[in-house]
Structure formats: C-alpha cells, structure tokens
C-alpha cells in the first residue's frame, strides 16, 4: 500500500469516528439543556442496548431485516439506480407469504413449505422491481419517482389482500388468519432470543458477497456502476446489467419481508409500509455498497434504534429527540466529503515530502 492509500483508509476511520464524536457531543449538549438527568440518559442511550441478553438479542433481531434490505439496496446502489421499491416489496412479500401459506394450508411439512415461501418472496420481489426497472429501461422514466409511487400502490394492494383475502374476522383488530406453524420460524440462541432469520441473513450476506466479488455478474455490475460509458466501450451492456441488478435487488427485498414475517409474526397485520426498505438504503450507504460491510452497518443502525427505545422507556426524553440524534450520526457518517479538506492536505503533504526525498536522493 502506498502513502496515498494509507492516508485514504486512515482518514476513512478518522472520519467515521469524528462523525460519531461530534454527533454524541451535540446530543449531550442538548440533553444537558433539556433533561433532568442527562448523564443517565446518555448512559442509557450508549450502553442500554447491551444491558441484558434480551436487549442484545433485540438489536440482532432488528439488524436482520436491515441486513437483508441493505443487501437489496447494494444491488441498486452498485449500478447507480436508486430504485426504492424495496420498501413496498418488503410489505408485499410478507403479505404474499401469508396468503400463499394460508391457501396451501397446514398440511405440508416445513421442508416443503419453507422453500415454497422463499420462492414466493423472491418472485414477488422480481415481479415488483421489474416495473420501475423496465420503465427506466424502455421509457427512461426516473426510477426514484416510479418506485416511490409504486410503493403506495403496493401498500394499497397489500391492504386489499389483507382485508378481502386473508382477514381473520374472529379477532377484534385488522389481521390475517394465523399462518401455518410449519412456517413459523423458531427463536434460537437461548436467552438472547434471536430469530432464526439470523441464519437467513448470514446466508444472504455470503451469497451476495460471492456474487459481487467472485462472479462475472458482480464484476459487470461494479464496472457499470463505476463508469457506465467505460463499461459500454469495453462491450458490456450497461442497460441490461443495471436492469438485472434491480431485479436481483428486488428478490432480496422479498426475502427480507418473508423472513421478517415468518420469524416475528403469526399474523400479517401491516396496513402501512414499514420503512425497512429505506433503512436498507441507509445501511447500504453506511456500508459503501460493500455487502461484507452491510451487517456492520445494519448492527450499527439497530444499535442506535434500540438505544432510542431504551431512552424512551426509561427516561424523560421523547423518542423524536432520539431520532434527531440518529439523524446527525448517520449524516456525519455518510457524508463522504466531511474532512476531505484535511485528507487532501495530508495527501498533498505526503506527495511534497516524497518529492523532496527524491530530490535529496538525486542530489
């Protein structure tokens, strides 16, 4: 590694740490102003998520959908198409899994049901993400706009299925009939009560990482994302590669929704989308579209979310305030050019020094 590279990777770490420190400092300053017991609140926010095995488990459980959604967004982000339809797919996939499993009934064993459920989820994801992707490809329609509009369509579609196809009229709230036990996934790891979705998430990370870094398709996607005109000039079809990447991203959003449904719920009861798709984008940005870093980004996001919950239940700080702190942290961590001036100065100095050394040698 040469000096420039060393400076770049060092500054990356410094940048993230500085972002965190500043964010917590701002939070602390505000807390001192508005809270009776600011130290306790900060302590709860930082350490609360680790205070019991149960809470650690909750962090991990929350990180599971974040991870899979983050992987989904890595595909979109890798080819520079901010297709946000993952948000809708997450909801619809859970809904479709519920519907299909109820249609199939409780008769079939898990080994048959589970693969069917994941196939349903993947197909849902592919079919839905096909819409903005094809509109982008054929009509040059902005994927961001189309996918956001599509999300509200999907939300209504899922609610329609809930109300008219799977609703359990014997319960007092709006919810589906209970899904067969054969697809209700168990909790694992004893007192941590972690969902078995963890296994799904780990498999997904490995699959996506291999896909990105070891297969021709992953290379194509990364080249197209890095410079589409170059990719075209060396004979890759930028348009179809980014199209397929969006479908693949949709498939993973589908897996995320299905996993969440089968691990966490016995009835489908969402009537609005769950923000998981957008959180996935956040995770992908934090991870710099590197699937290997996605779980870390997801755990970080889950950690501050749970920290917020802890503060909310144990202190005098409203949850909205914690959202503000989260926002600051994420902003500073994700802001790529934060401290870039310092970085450039360091690189410049190193180059200057090298020049002088060269001159000295020559003399």
């Amino acid at each position: 590694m040469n000096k420039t590279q060393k400076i770049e990777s060092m500054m990356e770490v410094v940048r993230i740490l500085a972002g965190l420190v500043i964010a917590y400092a701002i939070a602390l300053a505000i807390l001192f102003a508005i809270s009776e017991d600011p130290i306790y609140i900060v302590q709860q926010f930082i350490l609360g998520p680790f205070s019991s095995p149960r809470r650690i488990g909750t962090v991990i459980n929350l990180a599971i959908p974040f991870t899979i959604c983050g992987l989904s967004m890595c595909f979109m982000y890798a080819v520079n198409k901010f297709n946000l339809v993952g948000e809708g797919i997450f909801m619809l996939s859970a809904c479709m899994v519920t519907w299909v499993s109820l249609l199939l009934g409780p008769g079939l064993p898990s080994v048959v049901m589970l693969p069917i459920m994941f196939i349903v989820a993947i197909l849902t994801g592919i079919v839905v993400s096909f819409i903005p992707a094809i509109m982008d490809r054929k009509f040059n329609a902005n994927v961001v706009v189309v996918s956001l509009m599509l999300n509200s369509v999907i939300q209504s579609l899922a609610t329609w299925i809930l109300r008219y196809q799977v609703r359990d009229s014997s319960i007092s709230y709006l919810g589906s009939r209970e899904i067969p036990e054969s697809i209700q996934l168990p909790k694992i790891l004893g007192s941590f009560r972690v969902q078995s979705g963890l296994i799904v998430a780990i498999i997904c990370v490995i699959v996506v990482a291999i896909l990105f870094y070891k297969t021709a398709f992953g290379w194509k996607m990364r080249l197209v994302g890095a410079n589409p005109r170059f990719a075209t000039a060396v004979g890759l079809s930028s348009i179809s590669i980014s199209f397929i990447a969006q479908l693949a991203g949709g498939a993973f959003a589908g897996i995320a929704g299905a996993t969440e449904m089968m691990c966490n719920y016995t009835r489908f009861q969402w009537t609005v989308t769950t923000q998981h798709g957008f959180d996935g984008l956040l995770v992908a940005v934090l991870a710099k579209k590197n699937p290997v870093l996605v779980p870390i980004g997801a755990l970080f996001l889950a950690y501050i979310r749970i920290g917020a919950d802890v503060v909310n239940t144990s202190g005098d700080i409203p949850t909205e305030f914690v959202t503000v702190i989260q926002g600051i942290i994420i902003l500073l961590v994700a802001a790529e050019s934060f401290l870039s001036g310092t970085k450039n100065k360091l690189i410049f100095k190193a180059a200057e020094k090298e020049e002088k050394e060269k001159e000295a040698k020559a003399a």
Partner: protein
Amino acid sequence: MAEVMRMQNITKIYPNGFVANKDITFAVGEHEIHALVGENGAGKTTLMKILFGMEAPQEGKIFINGKEEKIANPLDAIAKGVGMVHQHFMLVPSLTVAENVTLGAEPMKNGLFDFDGAVKATQEIADKYNFNVEALQKVRDLSVGQMQKVEILKALYKGARLLILDEPTAVLTPQETEELFEQLFKLRDSGVSIIFISHKLEEVMRICSKVTVLRHGRCMGSLDIEGLNEAAISKLMVGRDVVLKIDKEDPKPGKPVVEIKDLVKINSIGKNVLDGVDFTIHEGEVVGIAGVEGNGQTELSEVLAGLTGFTSGDVKLNGTSIKGKSVREIRDQGMAYIAEDRMVEGVAGDMSIKMNIVADRFTKPDFKKGLFMDAKKINDIADQYIKDFEILCDGREQPVRMLSGGNIQKVVVAREFTSGANFILACQPTRGIDVGTAEMIRKTIVRKSREEGTATLLISADLNEVLECSDRLLVMRKGKVVAAFPKANQVSEETLGEYMLGVKEMTQSEMEGLL
C-alpha cells in the same frame, strides 16, 4: 489607429506544469476585426480566458484603452468593456430574450425587475445593430443562429466595446454565417472591436483585417491580412516543435481488415457529421487521420467502436458488416479501442488495475472456473501486464484513479493491445501523457503492425504522431476525407496544414488508390 486592448508578454503555466501561453503579446485596434488562429491546444482559449478574467496569468500585463488593468473575474471584464461569446451558449432556455439579455444587469423599477424596461432596452439595442430577434420570444424557441445573436446582444447590452467570439461559425449554417458577418461589419463600423477565433481560414481572410497566430503556446506573429494568403497563415499555424523520428520498415499491407464504404452519419440537429467517408485499412499497416478537431474524427471512431450507429453506407470488419452490432460483437469480430478520453471511456477510475485490465474479456469462458471467476488466472494476467507495460503502481488491486495519466494510459493499452484483435482503433493515444510512455505506445503500435499484421487506425491531433507513426495518411475535414498521402513521413507540415485548414482539397481521382 488607437489600440483598445493590449496583452503584453503574457505567460500562463497551469498547476500541472503545462505551459499554455509563453510570452504572448497581442493587441487589438479600434474598428478592427482581429483573427486569433491556432491549432487545438495552441493556447487561444487560455489567452482569451485571461482577457475575460477567468484565469490569472503568471506574468504579463493587460492594457485597456492604454491604461493598465487587472482583470479579476468575468464581471470585472464586463465592467471594463470586454464581452465574450462562448462556443457553448450560456442562456436560460425557459426565459425570454429580454430576460436573458438583461440578466445580471436588470433594469429595476420600485425595487422589482422592470420587465417592460428590459424588453424596451433589448429591442432598442437589437434595432440599433439590426439584429433580427424578438425580445419577447423564449430562448428555447430560437434557432442556433438566433441564440448566438442573443449572446452577442447580452455582451453589447452590458456595454462591451471589445467582443470575443470563440469559433462563432462552428454551429452555424452558411446562411446564418453570412448574416453574422454582416452584423459583425456593422458592429465594427459602430466602434466595437472584435476578436474572432476560428479555424476557418477563408472566413478569416474575408472578414478580418489582422491576424495573430499562436502555436504551441507561443505567438508566431501578428500580421495584416492584406497581402497574406491562406497558405501563409496555415504555414504559421501548423508545425512541429521538435521533429520526432520513429524508425520503421515499409509496411507490407495484406488483405483488407476494415472496409468503410460511403459512410454517412447525420446527427440529432441534422448536420452531416460524416459525409461519405470511404477508405480501407489493410493488414499490417497504420493509417493515420489528421485534421482539425471537430471535423468528424470523433464521430468516425464512435461508429467504428460500435458506440453509435450510422445513417447510411457500411463498415466491414474482417469481412462482416458491423451495422447494428453491439460493442461486444464488434470486439469479438476483432476490434480493440483506445478511447479519446481515457477517464470517460478508457477506465473505471474507482476500480482496481486488475479489473480494468480484464474488463473487456472477463466474461469469456476462459476466465471462469465453474460459476466463479478464475481469480488466479486473472491475477496472473494482471501481474504479467503490469510488468510487461511497466505500469508504476502498488500492485494490481490499486484503484486506477490513483495512478498518473501516463500509467492510466498504460492500463488502457495493456488491455487493448493484448485483446487479440487484428484492428486497433487508436484515438489520441498519447494525449496529455509523459514523453516516455508516449514513445512506448507509438512504438508498440508500429511493432504490432509489422510483427503481428495488425491493422491500425490512428486518429490524432499530434502532428508528430500522425506523421511518424502512420504509413498512409488521410486528412479529414467537414466529415469527409479531403486528402490522402501514400507515405505519411514524407508529407510536409505546410502541405498537411493546407489540407487540414481547407486551403486545398484533393479530387477523388487524385486520391484514387490511396483510400
């Protein structure tokens, strides 16, 4: 005749060490249309940017109406009576002519924009100089020629007494050009001095009274047009600083590899950017294309590389037409492409050297092991080429953007020279890189043609390169091949300049057998 502007001993060196202007003295008199001519990269644009306050020179002084002035920025330049019409128009399409003209110096009434006042002022000034534009029209509804008039009005409205026109006729039809000239004469007679930047010598001869020639950042002289001819100007413009010799044997051309037949491409605004190009490249020869940039060379290379289609005619590569083929298919037919702008089409800067080197071939079965990429093979190839092409780097995983320009270009040629193609399309292969690398690339082009029988099309603005590397030499102008020479290294710079600048043109029968 009084001087309205004098630039005295201007020297400008860019931070990367490129000397764009060296000790240039340039003066414009009253009632004068003064031509500023020179090849691409001769320093015209830099000199005008200095005058318009967009760049600061290291040395030299600027006098306006005999008084020494510091021009800090374009606003300052405008305040001092200098106006510039850029080649690419800087207009707001959704606003009216009047709003565009007055933008930045709007007439005000009661603290608000006085639209009627703007319309009146614009119409007045347009009528005064007989500019046929409607102040109330939206700019997006105007023709290119009218937009240019709006640009000129913009400068005049702000009180310009010295007008810089950067290649104003490049975008105009012949009729629009005539109209523009009439107006320029009127402006000149009413006391506005004009600096006219152009490649078109016949226009310079027609409308200008003086001409200043730049070459390689140096001033070759300011001369009166009277008594000059186009050939004399072209001789001053086109020339080599240092003559660079490349030793090579005579080519032994084999069977045709690329056959271009009556190729026509009409672009989106209806201009014939390629207008019946017709020539053949054989095995074992390097065909060079010289010409002032913007005469169809870029379009030709894009068509040959499969990046854009064409309107009519045909191109055959190794016997098969490339019409409607994808880049992948054309590359598989035997094409390799060194792109004009390496950062745009030559590399993906954020990706590793390794990925850039195998970017054109990793999808092939040889590079796969089952479902995955054959990492070992790819690493070996990357290491091999880094060694063979002497790419200075910290290993194959380093992102390409961290390399120097020359080393980036080595990554490009490492890929394109080793792709196994028998046709290399090399566009500006050594632009902006160090001498050593440039020499290596030129020698490799010649060696491949001699030893491996590669057919090469070399498109370059570097005279040394086209004259010394090429075997046959063609000159392109206005989308056509206007001259062909059997031996490139025997063509004199003067002759080449005359064809490049349109002083002379060969007939079809003269070029017979050389295409």
